[in-house]
């Protein structure tokens, strides 16, 4: 059919074909559908909660919780509130995440570098280790480590490591440090050493700029930071005592305890994440083209300096963003501690508190909000960092 000009005009005037109208309509529809859905959910939830006699709101946080928790950083007893249980959980999440991040980073970097050694056997061994750890679910690894911890000898047959440290199926029992007066000099010395180290770095940089002399900053600084606190400690007459745990009839008295739940979760999280970090490190170093190394070598730079001045600064740009997302993953994965009864955020707030109070919406929303806050703030910092280090291109 021939389309005459009138038809054509009509075609153009149809509201349906107007791009702006379509955009608005589509958005209005989206809002409508989403809003209706939300209203549907909210009204249902409200009526369901009413039917079960649950009042909404965060008042439950101040109610007495009435349960006990192991593994607490701050004292927690049955008379404390749900709010305090929430704080206990949050602190535990942060604790296991922080320690896990440190271990995972160290182990991951070592594994990643070993993967790149020219030694075929070593590199293959590390490859298979990394592949096995990466491809087995984390929860399974947590269960496994936990079973290993539980299968350790009972408390009365605890393995004595000889330095006042005992290992049993109730965890690790270690001497608790007792700070005597005058101990404050040790942290002060450490602080002084760090300040000195920074000053030394600046001085060395200036001296190199002025005279060209290279000063072995790293070794000297390492010695400084390690030795100064020790010297201060000795000079102050060893103001540190230890409370050695003693095996009594009902377990250990004294010392401080690292629970098997914590150890199992920490080991599983650290090694699992380390395997991913190893791959990231390896990929990051491999991403730097061989030409960079060759150019540095052709200029006469020693391999050590090539690594420090050319490869590492460039590799870090590639490594840091995925590394951060691994840290975030580790933090989120620490929620799996709930499966073995480690009192972290999900276990306290979305677990016991939720079951006791029935405040499902509030508990889960609060839990999610905490993780979201952590995630979004780290992403924000990351974006700033990425913008700063981005290579300048045309």
């Amino acid at each position, binding site marked *: 059919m021939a389309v005459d000009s009138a038809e054509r005009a009509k075609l153009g005037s149809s509201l349906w074909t107007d791009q702006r109208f379509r955009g608005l309509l589509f958005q209005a529809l989206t809002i409508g559908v989403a809003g209706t859905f939300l209203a549907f959910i909210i009204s249902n939830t409200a009526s369901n909660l009413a039917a079960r006699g649950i009042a909404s709101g965060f008042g439950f946080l101040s109610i007495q919780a009435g349960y006990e928790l192991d593994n607490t950083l701050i004292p927690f007893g049955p008379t404390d509130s749900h709010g305090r249980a929430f704080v206990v959980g949050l602190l535990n999440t942060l604790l296991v995440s922080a320690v896990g991040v440190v271990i995972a980073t160290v182990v991951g970097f070592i594994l990643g570098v070993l993967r790149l050694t020219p030694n075929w056997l070593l590199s293959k061994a590390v490859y298979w280790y990394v592949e096995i750890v990466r491809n087995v679910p984390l929860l399974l690894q947590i269960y496994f480590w936990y079973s290993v911890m539980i299968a350790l000898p009972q408390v009365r047959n605890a393995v004595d490591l000889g330095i006042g440290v005992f290992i049993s199926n109730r965890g690790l029992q270690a001497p608790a440090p007792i700070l005597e007066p005058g101990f404050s000099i040790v942290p002060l010395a450490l602080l002084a050493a760090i300040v000195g180290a920074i000053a030394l770095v600046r001085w060395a940089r200036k001296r*190199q700029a002025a005279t*060209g002399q290279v000063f072995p900053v790293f070794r000297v600084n390492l010695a400084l930071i390690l030795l100064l606190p020790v010297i201060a400690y000795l000079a102050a007459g060893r103001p540190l005592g230890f409370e050695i745990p003693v095996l009594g009839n009902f377990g250990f008295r004294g010392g401080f305890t690292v629970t098997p739940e914590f150890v199992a979760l920490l080991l599983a999280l650290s090694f699992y994440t380390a395997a991913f970090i190893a791959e990231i490190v390896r990929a990051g170093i491999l991403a730097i083209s061989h*030409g960079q190394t060759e150019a540095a070598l*052709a*200029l006469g*730079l020693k391999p050590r300096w090539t690594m420090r001045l050319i490869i590492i600064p460039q590799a870090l740009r590639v490594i840091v963003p995925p590394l951060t997302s691994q840290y975030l993953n580790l933090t989120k994965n620490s929620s799996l501690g709930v499966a073995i009864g480690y009192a972290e955020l999900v276990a306290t707030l979305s677990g016991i508190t939720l079951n006791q109070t029935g405040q499902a919406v509030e508990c889960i929303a609060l839990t999610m909000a905490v993780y979201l806050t952590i995630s979004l703030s780290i992403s924000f910092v990351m974006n700033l960092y990425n913008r700063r280090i981005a*290579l300048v291109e045309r």
Partner: protein
Amino acid sequence: MSDSQSHTTAQAEPRMQVSDEVAIEIRNMHKWFGEFHVLKNINLKVHKGERIVVCGPSGSGKSTLIRCINRLEQHQKGDIFVSGVELTDDIKNIAEIRREVGMVFQHFNLFPHLTVLDNCTLAPIWVRKLPKREAEEAAMKYLERVRIPEQAHKFPGQLSGGQQQRVAIARSLCMNPEIMLFDEPTSALDPEMISEVLDTMVALAESGMTMICVTHEMGFARKVANRVIFMDGGEIIEENDPETFFNDPQNERTQLFLSQILQH
């Protein structure tokens, strides 16, 4: 071995000063990549101030040859002497030689995370242990020589290919090398940028630098080289002064290669 070679050198009309001092000597050198015999019985003597152009079809071993000279590749048989120092596994010798030999790569290999100036001062500061001020002054001098002092504080990513290659030349010169190796310095460049790099190289040649240059720029070879070496299948097939090489090639393979490359 050097019957033929000294003959050649004597015949060439020295447009620039060539001293009798030997800069590089390669004797009966062989190299294999796995089972593949990539360099076969290479003999080459380069005098101080000589400018040598190496050409040949791709895969003929030209790049490998000059990469052996500063030990980016390891030869397996024969001897290489650079400025009288023998290339062995000794890291001291290698460091010594790399300090004396500058190299310019096909893909520039500038360090993208450092400014142009930092690229140039890195090695003088860390290898020659120069004070920063001195290193920077020297770097600016060489950047002026390659005619891009105004780019000193930009990053390599902000420069054009030709500019980057000139920075790479300046970066090598900052180490005050006695010998410069060029590994196809213009093959990765757009046509309009080739001449700016070649001009820089001509100027460098005129200053008396010992140069070995792997390139297909025959105009450049005619203009500055006092010897042209043709390689094929891992061997030096022919070496001659540019006049003879281009106008009266002796070996069949050289003739074929020249006819292919000079067709356009």
